[in-house]
Each structure stands twice: as structure tokens, then as C-alpha cells.
């Protein structure tokens, strides 16, 4: 696939014009209409349940805030760590390369939930720094637990992207007098960016949905908030409504990300 992409970069404009054609109606529109109609119908036929949901909305919003916080931090840490590990994987020195490869294999082959339990119990609940006691709350442990597999995945994506840039680009940059790091900064990484973007966004959507696992180690995020609400109200129709609301919220958060990725991909298609 990598070589196909490299070749595609050299084909003239005619054959690359095709993917730029835009659909006339964004698929966001029918989705938005569908969701709006569903909730209007529910508000009409289950007036009191929806009113109760509205009453619980601030609690759910607080939960969602935690999901967003964990996912953003996890992808951030994962990206920085993954870029470093991915670069180390390409090192010519065996003593650098081997541990980097080991790290990637270890975390890519670990179930996320097991990692979450592991990080929850392996880290202390507070850290001593001199005479200071810094709390180490569960949600940070979860963030680390999600960031580790994310970084391993990013490392593989990043390594693949770096390898997909032909050595001729390095040669051309070197011939102009660019150093290795300047070549990386001005020539190689900008080209990698486009190739890394779609899998990166995919991963972010995946991480976001995995943040619900945090409810299993006692972090109050959206799913945990929903459970609190349903347990308190204890009515089947309300329970169904709450989970439908949770699904809607995740959809509304993740779906635009995939749409946005598609837009960025077109923008960085280099024509």
C-alpha cells in the first residue's frame, strides 16, 4: 500500500482529479435530520421520561466532559510517545531499535480493558515528592492505560509513513544542503502528516469510545453517570432513553471527526 501511494504521488493531475469530486449533499444532513426527528417523536410520546432526562442532563454532561478530557489527553500523550517510539524503531542501532519494537508489540497485543485494570492497580493513589503528596486520581491512570496502546498504534502508523517516503526525497533534500533534521522537518514530516492523518483520526474515535471502559474502574464518565441516573430512577423506559441519549452523544462527537478527516484528506491531496 505504501508503494502504491508513493507511485500515486507521481501520476499526473488527470488521474488524481477523481477523488476530489464532492458529494452534493453532505451525509451529515440526513443524519442530523434523522436524529432530530427521533428525539422530537420521543419528546412527544414519552413526555415525562424526556423531562426526567432533561433533569439529569447536567449530570450526564459532567460525565461526557470526563470522556472528552481522557480521550484528548490519551491521544495527545499517545501521539507524542508514538512519534518518538516510531522514529526509534527506524534507528540503525540494534540496542535502540529492539526495545522500541518490543514496546510496540507488547502494547499492540494487550487488551485495552486489561491494561486499564493493570494501570489502575500498578500506580499508587498518590505520589510523594519530597514532603508533598500529589494525588494520582483514577481518571489519570485510565488516561495512561489508553495512551499506552494508542502510542504503540501511532508508532506503527508513523513508522509506516516514514518508510513510505522514498529515499529519493532524502537524497534531494541532502543535495540542497539540508541536514538530516532539516530534511525531516521541512521535507519528510510534512509528507508523512497527510498519510498519518486518516489512521490518527480513526484511532482518536476509537479511543473516545473506549473511554467508557473507565466506568469499570470507578471513574465517573458518561456511562457511569448514565448508570447512576437509571439506577436512581429505576424505570425501564427511562433506562432505554438514557442509553439512547448516550449513544446519540457519542455519535454526535465521533461522526464529525470522521467527516473532518475526509475534508483534511482532500485538502492535503497535493492535487
Amino acid at each position: 500500500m505504501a508503494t502504491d501511494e508513493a507511485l500515486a504521488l507521481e501520476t499526473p493531475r488527470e488521474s488524481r482529479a477523481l477523488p476530489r469530486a464532492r458529494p452534493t449533499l453532505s451525509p451529515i444532513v440526513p443524519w442530523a435530520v434523522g436524529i432530530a426527528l427521533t428525539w422530537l417523536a420521543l419528546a412527544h410520546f414519552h413526555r415525562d421520561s424526556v423531562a426526567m432526562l432533561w433533569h439529569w442532563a447536567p449530570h450526564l454532561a459532567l460525565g461526557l466532559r470526563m470522556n472528552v478530557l481522557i480521550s484528548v489527553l490519551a491521544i495527545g500523550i499517545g501521539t507524542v510517545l508514538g512519534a518518538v517510539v516510531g522514529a526509534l524503531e527506524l534507528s540503525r542501532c540494534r540496542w535502540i531499535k529492539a526495545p522500541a519494537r518490543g514496546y510496540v508489540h507488547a502494547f499492540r497485543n494487550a487488551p485495552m480493558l486489561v491494561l486499564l485494570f493493570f494501570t489502575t492497580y500498578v500506580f499508587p493513589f498518590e505520589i510523594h515528592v519530597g514532603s508533598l503528596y500529589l494525588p494520582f486520581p483514577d481518571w489519570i491512570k485510565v488516561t495512561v492505560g489508553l495512551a499506552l496502546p494508542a502510542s504503540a498504534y501511532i508508532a506503527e502508523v508513523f513508522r509506516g509513513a516514514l518508510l513510505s517516503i522514498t529515499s529519493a526525497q532524502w537524497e534531494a533534500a541532502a543535495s540542497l544542503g539540508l541536514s538530516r533534521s532539516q530534511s525531516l522537518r521541512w521535507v519528510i514530516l510534512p509528507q508523512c502528516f497527510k498519510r498519518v492523518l486518516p489512521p490518527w483520526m480513526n484511532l482518536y474515535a476509537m479511543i473516545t469510545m473506549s473511554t467508557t471502559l473507565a466506568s469499570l474502574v470507578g471513574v465517573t464518565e458518561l456511562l457511569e453517570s448514565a448508570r447512576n441516573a437509571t439506577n436512581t430512577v429505576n424505570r425501564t423506559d427511562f433506562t432505554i432513553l438514557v442509553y439512547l441519549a448516550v449513544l446519540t452523544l457519542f455519535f454526535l462527537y465521533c461522526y464529525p471527526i470522521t467527516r473532518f478527516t475526509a475534508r483534511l484528506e482532500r485538502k492535503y491531496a497535493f492535487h
Partner: protein
Amino acid sequence: MSESDKSQERQTLVQLRNVHLSFGANHVLKGIDLKVRKGDAVSIIGPSGSGKSTLLRCINGLLTPERGEVVVGDTPVHALKSEAERIALRKRIGFVFQQYNLFPHLTVLQNVVLAPIRILGMERASAEREARELLARVCLADKDEAYPGQLSGGQQQRVAIARALAMHPELVLFDEVTSALDPETVGEVLSVIRQLVEDGMTSLLVTHEMRFAEEVSHEVVFTEGGEIVEHGTPRDIFHAPRNPRTNAFINALRN
């Protein structure tokens, strides 16, 4: 001859002495001796796999010979150890590749100004002004905002030449720059190179365009199997080769 007397006076810019290089068991360069005088255009011809491209890469330090000397101006290229020294050398040498190797994520103008701004530390405005002049010189003044992927092969190669010239090189190395092009775009690239040579740019060309080599070169070098078989004026090499291997190569191309 007055022509050859004049070239004797000119100083030597590139000198290779007994250069050897192998890739694994493959002995690519087997003792190359070559001299390029300032202002000369020297063409290297010969069958594929005779080490022509490798030879060019030894001159700008992309490859380091195992044995022998490569000297550019006062710089002993074979003895350069640090990246900084190689960068200082490469700033003085333009390199144009067979596959153009433009940076696909940058526009034509950005391709040309990247190194002058980042490496020579030029002001963006003056770098861009100069780049536009160079693009006009290769007849691409209207393509400055295009991306390489939107250009034909011949246009891309002319951008690559402009990009090399933007560094004000003392020497330009051309590595089979028309081999990847459609026949109808070869001419536009060759005429740009011809103009450069007429302006006195020292050039070393690896080429399969025999007629062009004969027309623009001050000297032609025939290589085969990692050795220089024969060198001389274009007239000698193409019309009165002394070596039977040169003769065979030239005749095979004629037919």
C-alpha cells in the same frame, strides 16, 4: 587549436583520482580518473550499470568512495567526515535527478525557495523574487503556484533545474535528467541545459542523449564496467573513437 589552449588555462574544478567503490560484491567504480575545468560541460556516456550515477553521487558526497580522491575546488570530498562539511560542499553543487524528486507537498515556488531561505538564510522576499526570475528562465513563470503533481515531467524537471540554480552553485550535476521524460518534453529540458552551458555554468552530465552530448559538451567521457574507457572531444568520441568498445557502443546507438 586556440579553443583547447583557452581551456588549458582554466582552473580545474572537479578532479577524481583512482576512485573505487563497491556495493557488497558489486564493484561499481574501478579506478575512475576525471577532470572537469571551470566553465566546461562534460558528458558521461556509457551503457546502463556502468557506474555513471554512482560517480556523480561521489562528487557531492552522497556516497563516499572506498579508495581514491575526489576534489571539488579546494575541498577533499573523499576525506569529509562531518555532516556540516558535507552540507558546506552541497551548497556549492547543484544536483538534478532522473526522477526530478521535487517535494510534492510544496508548490513550485516553495520548492525553489526552500533551500535559499532555510540554508542560505535569504530573506523570503528576495528569495521569491530570484525564484520567479529563475522560473521565467526555464519558461515556467506562470506555474509558481502549481504543485509538482499538476505538471508534466518536462515541466517538473525544469523546476528541478531552477531549484538547483537557486543555490547559486559553482557546478551542476545532471543525472540522466531526460531518461524519465516523454519524447516530446525532452527538448524543452535540453534547451534549458544548453542555455546554462552557454552561460558558462560548469556542468557534468550523465546522459543517453548522444546528439545533445555531442552538441553541448566540451568533453565526452565513455564509461563501461566501472572504468573510463575513453575520453576526448565530442568529435573524437563520436566520429573517431580509438577504443573498439567505444566504437561498438556508438555504432549500436546509431543503428
